[in-house]
């Protein structure tokens, strides 16, 4: 495996390379979710009939999922602090709590969707449900990707290897949480 | 207040202008043509002149010019300002022409419904009583008959995919969107038979979706309306493999 290039070790922009790259990932993600949510909001304001469709989303499950993600964000930031102090084991444990939070979120989302589909609200039922599944689906895919990377980072952190990666996956995870913070009212509260 | 400053002739030389606003659009196009053409020739001229003047054999030693000093940058900032001024001039006329053609519709003396669908145009003429969707409407396929000197409003819609109702001689072009009935206007000023083209790709038959527009004098138009039953099919659309 070729050694990591010297280029990675430099920081002429005054920031560690990894963190700079993650912020660029977040910038391009803002624009992806921004485009999707802007389209949803426009359609939602244009079609009053959608509030009747939106009435069929389950606010309690949405609220619980929000609580789960917020708590996993807390665990992620505690993990980041532990990593800064060089305590790999503690950081790994916190990351596994975040992993558990993300996994719970996905499981709960799975049940929620199963229930809604059984009620006949499929993705092609009408355009509200199409946006609902597309937006929540894209977000869930990011949650899934996040927990997979988190597992990899946690296993390395347990051996005190690449502790700076803990911060990187933490910042990405907080972004995924912020997207859900906006998705929750848009899909569940606005009735 | 912003009438064409000169009589345009360039596009008119290629495509007759057969509607009241054709001249406005031609004038705007030509105003841009002369401004932009002059700038282009000047810039390209200076460019080639510099290449020849400062070729290696004529100037073996290059000068050291940073281009950061005010005295040097003026050669850039003056043309830069001039480009901005001309842009504003073009902008004023562009917005005026756009407003006249697309936003400020004169009162309609007659209405025609234009329906684009995958690969044919259906025109619903208002018929003698001048009111659309009345009993005496005349619906034709791929053949639009209009009367000279009458202000027409067209109600343009598409049934399946995007189409575009374009009459080059009128300088008229408007996309037809499924789910919207778009209103525009034209007033023919020249008799004759001209092309109508679909200007938005709409599938395999997009190239065959041509139609003809017949601009007739009031007498010819009245005769046409009288002789026509409500539904009539135009002559078969020209077949595809017309040999060279």
């Amino acid at each position, binding site marked *: 495996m070729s050694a990591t290039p010297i280029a990675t070790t430099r920081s002429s922009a005054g920031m560690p390379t990894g963190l700079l790259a993650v912020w660029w990932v977040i910038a391009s993600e803002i624009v992806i979710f921004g485009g999707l949510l802007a389209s949803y909001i426009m359609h939602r304001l244009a079609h009053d009939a959608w509030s009747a469709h939106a009435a069929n989303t389950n606010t309690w499950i949405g609220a619980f999922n929000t609580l789960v993600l917020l708590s996993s964000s807390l665990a992620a930031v505690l993990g980041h602090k532990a990593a800064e102090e060089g305590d790999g084991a503690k950081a790994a444990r916190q990351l596994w709590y975040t992993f558990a939070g993300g996994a719970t979120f996905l499981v709960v989302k799975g049940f929620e969707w199963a229930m809604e589909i059984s009620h006949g609200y499929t993705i092609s039922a009408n355009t509200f449900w199409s946006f609902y599944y597309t937006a929540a689906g894209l977000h869930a895919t990011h949650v899934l990707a996040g927990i997979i990377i988190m597992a990899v980072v946690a296993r390395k952190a347990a051996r005190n290897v690449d502790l700076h990666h803990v911060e990187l996956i933490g910042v990405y995870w907080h972004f995924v949480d912020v997207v859900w913070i906006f998705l929750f009212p848009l899909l569940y509260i606005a009735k | 207040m912003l009438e064409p400053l000169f009589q345009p002739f360039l596009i008119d030389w290629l495509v007759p202008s057969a509607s009241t606003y054709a001249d406005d659009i031609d004038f705007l196009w030509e105003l841009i043509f002369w401004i932009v053409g002059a700038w282009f020739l000047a810039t390209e001229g200076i460019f080639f002149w510099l290449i020849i003047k400062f070729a290696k054999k004529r100037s073996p030693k290059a000068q050291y010019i940073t281009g950061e000093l005010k005295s040097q940058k003026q050669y850039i900032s003056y043309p830069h300002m001039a480009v901005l001024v001309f842009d504003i001039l073009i902008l004023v006329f562009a917005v005026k022409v756009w407003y006249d053609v697309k936003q400020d519709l004169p009162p309609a003396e007659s209405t025609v419904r234009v329906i684009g669908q995958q690969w044919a145009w259906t025109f619903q003429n208002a018929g003698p009583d001048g009111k659309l969707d009345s009993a005496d409407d005349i619906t034709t396929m791929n053949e639009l008959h209009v009367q000279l000197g009458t202000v027409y409003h067209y109600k343009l819609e598409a049934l399946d995919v995007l189409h575009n109702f374009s009459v080059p001689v009128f300088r008229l072009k408007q996309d037809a969107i499924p789910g919207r009935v778009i209103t525009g206007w034209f007033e023919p000023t020249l008799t004759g038979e001209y092309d109508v083209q679909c200007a938005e790709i709409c599938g395999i038959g997009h190239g065959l979706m041509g139609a003809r527009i017949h601009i007739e004098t009031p007498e010819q138009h009245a005769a046409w309306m009288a002789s026509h039953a409500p539904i009539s099919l135009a002559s078969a659309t020209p077949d595809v*493999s017309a040999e060279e």
Partner: protein
Amino acid sequence: MAEAVPAGSQDPHGGHGHHEQSFWSKYVFSTDHKMIAMQYMFTGMAMGMIGAFMAYAFRMQLAFPGMEVPLYGLVSPANYNSLVTNHGTIMIFWVAMPVLLAGFGNFLIPLMIGCDDMVFPRINRLSYQIFLLSAIVLLASFFVPGGAFGGAWTAYPPLSSEAQYSLTPMGSSFWVVAVALEFVAFLMGGINFVTTAMNSRAPGMKMYDIPIVVWMIVIASILFMASVGPLIAGAIMLFFDQNLGTAFYDPSRGGDPILWQHLFWFFGHPEVYVVLLPALGVTAEIIPVFARKKFFAYKTVLYTVFATGVLSFTVWAHHQFIAGIDPRMANIFTVTTLLISVPIAEMCFVYIATLWGGSITLSTPMLWALAFVAEFLIGGVTGIFLGASGADIYMHDTYFVLAHFHYTFYPIAIVGTFAGFTFWFPKMFGRMMDDRLGKIHFWGSIIPFNCIFIPLFVLGMAGQHRRIFDFNAYPDLALPWMQHTREFVTIALLVMLAFQLVFFYNVWKSLRKGEKASKNPWKSNTLEWTTESPPGHGNWAELPTVYRGPYEYSVPDREEDYWPQNQPS
């Protein structure tokens, strides 16, 4: 899609010796930024040949309707639409972007800012592999039942979202998946470029010591990353419309076709600057070298590029003046479109002003670079006709538009690429190209190019619209002079394609028998000319330090007329 293996470049042991790599790890699964640059460049050029073949096929149909086109066969309306659609798609996404943005970006950024590789070599390799997969998926769309997608490279729904209208059910989905994969590849590549350029500059290299091509490619990557997002969301929605029966763009079930147009063109216009800026950067590197003169107003160009970048997010609806958007919006977008022509005009003035006081040698790279400026001027100037909403009423979707964007895309994708390729060929392959063959190829490409697109301007003025496969169906367009013009244009295209063989012969000959290239054949200042040709793994034995800007040519009271960036005194 076997990569053409550059036989000439052995891998002289770089600073830190390492085991002799196998063919696979050195050429196919390499993480060396130079090898990945070659992979991108050769895949881009291969796709360029496929795109050119499509142009040949449908131009023959236009010139001789209904004829059996040699090497292709009969061009039916469906074939014509998919050829035109995929010609546009390939030339922008699979030729201009890989060659200019990824090819030159990967090769030049580490070498020009003095570091040994990209910050994330493995992500860099993965981005090429996803790009290659996207190219394969797109080409596969020609062989699926129903044929390739034929709804124009802009893929406006409902034609692109309803299989019943496009009659290419699988072709449409393959097209969307290929374009989405290509976006993923360039998002990963873009992040690599921006982070490397920002963070791994050589010690001593201040902001204004960075060569302009690095600035341009970084800003192009930022423009791409900030604008592609909504279209990725749009592509997901389009894919669901095509396959899951959703109705994002189906008006009868609550969707809106105009939404896709906005999502597409919000990306579309910054995209044309994404491909323009690298070509501008390549030209900005070549002109000072062959004019032996400092680049005029470096800072002004930088601020102009920032202004153009920001403004490019405010102009997109000039593609949709008559496409059903609210007519009042058209006036706002006319203002912003005419406003953006000002910084671009300034950049052209600065490029021309650089020639003042120079000592110009017209070598092949210089000819290409000057031709870029000369041809792009026509492209830029004809944009004003289309940006002004009033004139666009008549001009929209005619051949005038087609000629306009070929006068911007051809200089970018072909002239800019050949300029960069002939200029950096010695550094990439360690051999010099034959200058005489280079000039023959240059004149053989530029003259026919103008013979193709100047007549198309005139056909556009005559009201001939795009994507119509046989103009005999329109009596006003089947006039003899028009048909003869189409034949003349097609013959000019054949001549231009023939001259490309001169280029391939020149490359093939130079790779094998070209004169060995020294470290700095053009006596240029930038850092890539301070290492061997071709640079080994890790680029330098020890990484350079930078002492001055990249354009210190003909500095008074110095006998050498160039002053490399890494020379202390």
